[in-house]
């Protein structure tokens, strides 16, 4: 016993030393990666093109600062603020002068007795009534400003500052908010919106909320675990293995220089759900052994449990790891890492269960408190009744499962991907209301860029091409969610009108190529040529059309794309290729990639699991039956999302991995113990009852602990965290129910593992 204690102590010390090393790594080398661009696969053609186009046309995400004055913005004070904000933004190192668009910086293209004039709407703030009225008339008469930098009801003015994503930092987010809010007061209300702000708020709110919720989650898990295991030591040790495996996983990431991405926060979620189960299995078997042989010593008890448990535990851990490793087929790097390091964490949780937990038991002993449950166990328990009821109502179960599967498939067909950031916030949160407000007054807070390109230079000086662009813009803007659009065509229409005595009949594309070319030359001579560079290149064979959208969700973008794509063929006839750019579009493609990868990975891991189970249990039928809980869990998970209108996003898509991880564990433990039991017992009826009582209970405990813990997240203030909590709980519950009902019935009904017996 002395030697054994020494080994045990050594094991614990080594574990703690390694853990300390990884903690040190995390402290010194861990690095959060919040720049979403870092998530994108750099070599994907859609991203390469978009990045290129962003560079060509200075396409940036806009921070929108809106000033509202209920009495109208045409008063010296509000106009002074517009000017001050514009100039202050231009002076910030994050912005170039021409990144800032407002009534103050906008070009007012007008015709006069002189000819074409490109001036500012105002330089000095107009003070007199006449001057203010003149400004109002000028803006009203200019479609390039009216409804774009000043709302049509003239109560809101907009200052847009284009921002390079990589320059957006936490400090800058705070800076820009407090900067903008300084201008609030004296009848002026300030609103700050735009994608960088939404991203910034999300980046802060999510982790902040998690920091608050995680301790409560852990507390609840600890409490429930204690109630079920009835041992402080067992509870602490089980949680220890989960924490240590999490620390090792993050420590290894830090040591290898892999940054922590937003999806990496799902690693502990997976490890809690799966790792807690390992401890529960162990202690359940230990308790059982102690009950059967009360006089045994801890060394023998541990030896026995290891003998019984190592095989199913290893198979379960191995298959779960395969499920996660299959995520390396994803094109998205953070997801590859997520899969790899979760698999690593699981291997550690597995190893600790076989080494660390026994060591603590040998060293500190184990005291099982036998309460009332013990008394029940001897008689015919609730579990026995449940098992009988299930077995005698097979048909009801089959029909229920069939109905659930059909409903889920229907639900799955309604699942939609959402790349929206805004949908992560409460409907009545300030950021959503601000966005709504700005959208109600202006074209839209989100943008979609359509880039047209041709081999032939000068093609975008051709009237027929420009007319097609104009037509496409006009049709797309008809959509309720598309506010307005902007292109080279808008410049030309405006110039054509002002050069023809402001006659509205000339608000159209000039009729000849020469006329277009000469207007453009004229604009270059009178205005700021850099403005043109945002819509067309030097060779006039590449142009950028900006659509403003009133939503950043995939439905809105796809709706606009459907209309736009109708013109693809017509442009193609003119030798013009159509592409898209901008962060909204990239997010859309990106989410598609994640989903695509996730579905591929689920199918791949299902096949692998099927093969592994078939090999392990030497029966294809067993493989099929064992895979059933996973399939049901995944289907219901997607079905519920479809039916309850929960869109797929980076995190929700990953949750289906839980289905695989947990589902396999349950199936393997159940079937392995059933196989052992059937070999030792007369009747398969006894075997199934015993398995249900032993493994079924362990599975139930595991599900209860994790569900109780994750239900806490339902009280989170950050909607994505609530969804996370609900879906993890749902997946745990379906895995549990699927294993203990339909799979149990099938295992029993199919007379699995009976061959040896029959031969006897």
């Amino acid at each position, binding site marked *: 016993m002395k030697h054994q204690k020494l080994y045990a102590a050594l094991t614990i010390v080594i574990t703690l030393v390694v853990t300390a090393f990884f903690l040190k790594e995390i402290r010194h080398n861990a690095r959060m990666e919040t720049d979403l661009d870092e998530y994108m696969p750099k070599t994907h053609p859609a991203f390469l093109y978009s990045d290129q186009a962003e560079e060509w046309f200075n396409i940036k995400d806009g921070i929108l600062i809106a000033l509202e004055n209920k009495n109208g913005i045409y008063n010296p004070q509000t106009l002074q603020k517009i000017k001050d904000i514009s100039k202050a933004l231009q002076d910030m190192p994050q912005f170039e002068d021409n990144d800032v668009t407002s009534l103050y910086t906008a070009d007012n293209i007008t015709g006069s007795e002189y000819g074409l*004039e490109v001036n500012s709407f105002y330089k000095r703030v107009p003070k007199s009534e006449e001057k203010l009225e003149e400004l109002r008339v000028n803006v009203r008469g200019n479609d390039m400003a009216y409804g774009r930098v000043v709302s049509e009801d003239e109560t809101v003015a907009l200052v847009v500052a284009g921002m390079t994503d990589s320059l957006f930092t936490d400090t800058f987010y705070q800076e820009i908010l407090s900067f903008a809010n300084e201008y609030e007061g004296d009848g002026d209300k300030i609103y700050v919106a735009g994608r960088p702000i939404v991203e910034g708020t999300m980046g802060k709110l999510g982790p902040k909320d998690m920091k608050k919720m995680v301790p409560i989650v852990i507390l609840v898990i600890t409490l429930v675990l204690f109630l079920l295991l009835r041992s402080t030591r067992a509870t602490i040790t089980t949680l220890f293995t989960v924490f240590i495996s999490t620390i090792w996983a993050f420590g290894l990431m830090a040591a290898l220089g892999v940054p922590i991405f937003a999806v990496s926060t799902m690693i502990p979620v997976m490890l809690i759900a799966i790792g807690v189960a390992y401890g529960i299995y162990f202690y359940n078997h230990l308790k059982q052994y102690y009950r059967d042989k009360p006089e045994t010593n801890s060394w023998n008890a541990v030896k026995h449990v290891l003998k019984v448990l190592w095989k199913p535990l290893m198979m379960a851990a191995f298959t779960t790891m395969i499920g996660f490793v299959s995520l390396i087929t994803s094109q998205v790097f953070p997801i590859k890492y997520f899969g790899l390091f979760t698999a690593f964490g699981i291997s550690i949780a597995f190893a600790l269960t076989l080494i660390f937990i026994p060591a603590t038991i040998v060293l500190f002993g184990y005291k099982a408190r036998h309460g009332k449950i013990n008394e029940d166990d001897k008689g015919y328990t609730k579990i026995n009744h449940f098992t009988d009821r299930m077995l005698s109502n097979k048909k009801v179960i089959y029909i229920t499962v069939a109905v659930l599967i059909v409903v889920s498939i229907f639900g799955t067909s309604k699942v939609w991907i959402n790349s929206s950031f805004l949908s992560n916030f409460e409907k009545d949160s300030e950021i959503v209301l601000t966005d709504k407000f700005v959208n109600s007054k202006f074209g839209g807070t989100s943008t979609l860029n359509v880039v047209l390109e041709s081999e032939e230079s000068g093609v975008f000086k051709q009237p027929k091409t420009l007319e097609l662009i104009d037509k496409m813009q006009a049709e797309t803007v008809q959509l309720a969610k598309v506010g307005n659009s902007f292109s080279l065509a808008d410049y030309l229409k405006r110039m054509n009108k002002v050069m023809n005595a402001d006659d509205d009949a000339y608000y159209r594309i000039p009729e000849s190529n*020469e*006329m277009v*070319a*000469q207007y453009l*030359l*004229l604009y*270059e001579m009178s205005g700021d040529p850099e403005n043109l560079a945002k819509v067309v290149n030097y060779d006039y064979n590449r142009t950028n059309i900006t659509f403003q959208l009133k939503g950043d969700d995939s439905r809105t973008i796809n709706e606009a794309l459907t209309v736009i794509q109708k013109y693809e063929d017509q442009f193609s006839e003119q030798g013009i290729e159509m592409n898209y750019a901008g962060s909204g579009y990239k997010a859309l493609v990106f989410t598609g990639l994640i989903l695509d990868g996730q579905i591929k990975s689920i199918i791949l891991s299902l096949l692998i699991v099927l093969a592994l189970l078939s090999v392990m249990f030497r029966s294809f039928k067993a493989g099929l039956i064992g895979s059933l809980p996973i399939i049901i869990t995944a289907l219901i998970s997607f079905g519920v999302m479809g039916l309850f209108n929960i869109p797929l996003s980076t995190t929700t898509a990953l949750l289906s991995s839980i289905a695989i991880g947990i589902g396999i564990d349950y199936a393997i433990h159940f079937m392995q113990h059933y196989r052992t039991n059937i070999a030792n017992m007369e009747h398969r009826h006894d075997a199934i009852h015993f398995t249900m009582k032993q493994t079924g209970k362990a599975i139930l405990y595991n599900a209860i602990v994790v569900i109780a813990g994750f239900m806490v997240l339902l009280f989170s203030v950050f909607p994505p965290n609530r969804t996370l909590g609900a879906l993890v709980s749902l997946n745990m519950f379906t895995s549990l129910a699927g294993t203990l009902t339909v799979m149990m019935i099938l295992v029993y009904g199919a007379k699995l593992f009976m061959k040896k017996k029959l031969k006897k």
Partner: protein
Amino acid sequence: MKRVITILAVLLIASQGFAQLSGDEIMNKVYNLPTGNDQQGQLTMTLINKSGEQRVRKLQQYIKLYNGDEKKVMFFLAPADVRGTSFMNWSYADGRDDDQWIYLPALKRTKRISSDSKSESFMGSDFTYDDLGDRHPSEDTHKLLREETIDGKACYVVESTPKDDTYAYSKIISWIIKDNFMGAKREFYDEDGDLLKTLTVIKYDKIDGFWTILQTEMKNVQKNHKTEMKFENIQFNQGISDNKFTERGMTLGS
């Protein structure tokens, strides 16, 4: 011995006298270089953006002096879709804003274009009207910084600071060739004192007895954009008709 000292003294005084040319004097000499009464020739202007794309324009230009006022008219030869477009600029010695006209053949109309300031871009290029050379030395204070040899030519390096502190540049540093008072290089600094643009004279020659710039390049180092100008077939004092410099003259082509 006495003779030697005398010679040395004379040399010393002479060299000192030469070196003592002040910044103001240098820039005045530059400004007052003879240019002839009129000048004509072809100008090829190439705008090159940061992606390396080029926009090439060919113009025929005529310039004539009227007691310090300068009238200039330019006719576009290429690209084809703007051929016949003409641009006229009158700049005044008394500092009034320039008058500018443009004639668009597609519209068959001559239009005035307004220009608020001489620091605006010339036809979308990196040159402002001022950069093209009609800024009077009295508008700046000049300081001779040092002498330096660039491309094998001895130059004065003069720093010019505008008296009007709202001017587009905070300072300009010019390299002036000692021999002929032609500019070889110029650096323009923005309002924050950072280098904004560099002008390099690539080729110059004496034509009809006048020192003339034949090729020059202006590079905006902040925007990574540049403009090349190339002059060909330059002729001086050909007695260009005053009719060229009228709104009607603009419509008649080069």
